């Protein structure tokens, strides 16, 4: 996909996020929207996956370590063709295969159940290790929140990945700057994030995580990096694309009501029109 196509797709992914969370009357729109460009790039450009064969043997793997942003993952998977976009509305409903946090047994395309913060990165490390042990070429990607990296297990996993030189692993940090209780640097600052991963023997790339040129360059650089894992620290805007959700900690884990939903969708329709309509 070219940049414009990616931008248009990301806008559709954002519509799916807002629709899912509105349908659920609960969920986490802020961190799903901030990472929508990353989800889009991974599933439409970067990863070797097949929606018709979600468990294809040597596919690339993705673990959503910040599992509460499941609406972002689900919307990307649905738009990519793993399941109908229409089903996003059933998010969190009783009996739905779209659980509040990712469940690998329920949802096609979900490689690992996650949601308890700090645990997903370890599973991703295990997948990357399995590829190394078996001499396979597949790569593993994991997305973490910037609040999530306050969990100690993240650094246990990073120490191991650096020690084992897992260059088939890419750790992505969605640095939208906000967590439930407020700004991450007010609550318990994880900064400097890049220096921490460097200290754990990662190759570190700092980018604007809402800019596809920079995202594209970073993932290409990660692929070319040998002998160490890569961490891509993505500066993003929480709630990106929906005017009243942008940079608001209050929209971390809250669903829009009907009126707010209409406003949010109008915002995204406008962005879509500015991009020149659908792909």
């Amino acid at each position, binding site marked *: 996909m070219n940049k414009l196509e990616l931008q248009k797709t990301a806008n559709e992914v954002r519509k799916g996020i807002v629709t899912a969370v509105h349908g659920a009357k609960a969920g986490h729109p802020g961190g799903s929207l901030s990472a929508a460009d990353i989800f889009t790039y991974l599933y439409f450009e970067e990863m070797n996956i097949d929606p018709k064969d979600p468990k294809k043997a040597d596919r690339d793997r993705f673990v959503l370590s910040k599992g509460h942003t499941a609406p972002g993952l689900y919307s990307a998977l649905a738009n990519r063709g793993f399941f109908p976009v229409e089903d996003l509305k059933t998010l969190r409903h009783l009996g739905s295969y779209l659980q509040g946090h990712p469940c690998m047994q329920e949802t096609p395309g979900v490689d690992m159940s996650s949601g308890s913060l700090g645990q997903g990165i370890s599973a*991703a490390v295990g997948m990357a290790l399995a590829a190394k042990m078996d001499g396979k070429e597949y790569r593993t990607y994991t997305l973490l929140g910037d609040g999530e990296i306050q969990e100690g297990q993240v650094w246990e996993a990073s120490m191991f990945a650096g020690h084992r030189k897992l260059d088939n692993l890419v750790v992505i940090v969605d640095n939208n700057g906000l967590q439930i209780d407020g700004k991450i640097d007010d609550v318990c600052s994880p900064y400097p994030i890049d220096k921490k991963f460097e200290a754990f023997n990662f190759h570190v790339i700092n980018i604007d995580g809402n800019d596809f040129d920079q995202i594209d360059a970073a993932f290409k650089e990660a692929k070319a990096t040998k002998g160490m894992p890569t961490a891509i620290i993505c500066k993003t805007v929480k709630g990106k694309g929906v005017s009243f959700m942008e940079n608001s900690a209050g929209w971390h884990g809250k669903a829009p009501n009907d009126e707010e939903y209409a406003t949010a969708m109008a915002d995204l329709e406008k962005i879509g029109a500015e991009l020149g309509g659908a792909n």
Partner: protein
Amino acid sequence: MADVKKIATRESYGNALAECGADFPNLVVLDADLAGATKTGVFQKAFPERHIDCGIAECNMTGIAAGLATCGKIPFISSFAMFAAGRNFEQVRNSIGYPHLNVKIGATHAGITVGEDGATHQCNEDVALMRAIPGMTVIVPSDDVEAKAAVRAAIEFEGPVYLRFGRAAVPVINDTPDYKFEIGKGVVLREGTDVTIVASGITVASALEAADMLAADGISAEVINIHTIKPLDEELVIASAKKTGKVVTAEEHSVIGGLGSAVCDCLSQKCPTPVYKIGMQDVFGESGPANALVAKYGLDGKGIYESTKEFVK
């Protein structure tokens, strides 16, 4: 029992892994800086490329095992029960239990027979924690023969399994020609009519000793080895309870949530029977030689004999 062969089940664990390594190419073993103590060093020596030392980071080890399992490996994570089940509880629950991944948890140094290290390392709560996780199989082998059989059975079984091993050498009691291990199937070691003693792990040998002492007093005790605490062999427990009308449970674990609770959960619903639970009575352990601790807390033959005699009189 001075002339009986004694082996610690942690030794059996390491040996069984090494013996199974060639048969199961997907078998991998993970440690958290305790390969010498958990005895997985034996496997490490034989299959170095399939042994992963994660350093002192049990939670990460658990997640790595989960990731390996999604890629077709059969990982065993090894640590002391305190860390494998205790520190790790939520990782085991969410990263292994919830996705029902094919990870085996080899927990050594369980219970008070850890001995001198004392209460911080004597895990008497692990069975309760693991038993509460949906879909988790929980096995507590009683000796070398059973521990080795359990390891092989766990490898052949698809799904998460918690295996509990001890630090101290225990008598070999199952080296009989007709011994057969099947997950979920208890074993009647001695038939009796007055009382049933249900035991697991190190208390199985103690229960056999107690049964001898009870027999001398004219009390006929049936001894059942429940090596699989979950799923419990309910049919066997109920049949024996119906026959004897009184049940004693004996375990090197808290009486809250372990074997005794599992037996009570079953009997209270399906065959109400008086039960007396022998085990750690809601207390922490302490430093001391393993055999002295077992005696102090009433888990040796004499302790089980005395508690049972009091209960049936």
